[in-house]
């Protein structure tokens, strides 16, 4: 999606894209609605809007699981999903109402750098 860099979400997408130009896709997603606030994809096979909608379910189910287990003093910081050739990272904001969704190629990207980029840019989001 073409995103505006005047919004916090757009700035986050731009920052992540600047630090990880080889990424496959990135999106800033609102957990309640599941809608992508800003997104960018370098691959025609990944539609970031669709990915955002379905990955929101992942986050919500995990939040439900934590409620069911009465883990009230814990918050989800991030979720890392390892696929055959890809890594999917979901980095939640501290208050848990938004997350950054990042897709990278496992062979081409340094996981430590990716996590650090997400960690620093997630603080910009409220």
């Amino acid at each position, binding site marked *: 999606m073409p995103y505006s860099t005047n919004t916090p979400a757009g700035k986050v997408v731009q920052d992540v894209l600047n630090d990880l130009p080889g990424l496959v896709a990135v999106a800033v997603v609102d957990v*309640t*609605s*599941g*809608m*992508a606030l800003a997104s960018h994809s370098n691959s025609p096979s990944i539609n970031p*809007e*669709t990915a*955002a*909608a*379905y990955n*929101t*379910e992942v986050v*919500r189910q995990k939040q439900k699981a934590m409620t069911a287990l009465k883990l009230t003093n814990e918050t989800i910081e991030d979720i890392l999903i390892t696929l055959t050739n890809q890594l999917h990272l979901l980095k939640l904001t501290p208050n848990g109402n938004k997350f950054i969704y990042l897709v990278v190629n496992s062979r081409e990207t340094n996981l430590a750098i990716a996590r650090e980029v997400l960690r620093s840019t997630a603080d910009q989001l409220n």
Partner: protein
Amino acid sequence: MMEISVVSTKPPKKIVRIQPSIFWNISPNEGILFPKKIEKVIKKMFSQLPLLITIAVVETSTGKCLAYLSQPSGFDPTPAVACGAETVRQQQQVMAALNMRGERLEDILIPFRKQLHLIRLAKNGQWFGYLVVKPQDTSLALAREVLKSIIL
């Protein structure tokens, strides 16, 4: 001494699930859509979102509800879809008034506090799907994606 235990011989309670059925409102050879296509759309929506409140297939020009499926506890969407069709027609008027070229109205999302209403137009704009879900069961984006994948 032999202990005789009496086992209850009552048959186990059968749990009967009431499957919602599709309500039809058209005669078999009528109109803009084959009944098979309507049935496919409704059945696919129900299989992907079994917790939906209502899914209806509506003709845009008249607002007539061609067929719908509602939960047993749900409501008859006929008045709602007529208003939905009015909304769609108004947006189509906006497009005409602004001379939008190469534009197509794809969907309309109406999030209420306790319900989400989604309208997804078909490519030719002659009919649309009207979906009502609860936000606890599915997020707005997910309902939109599911609707998008079925009504292309």
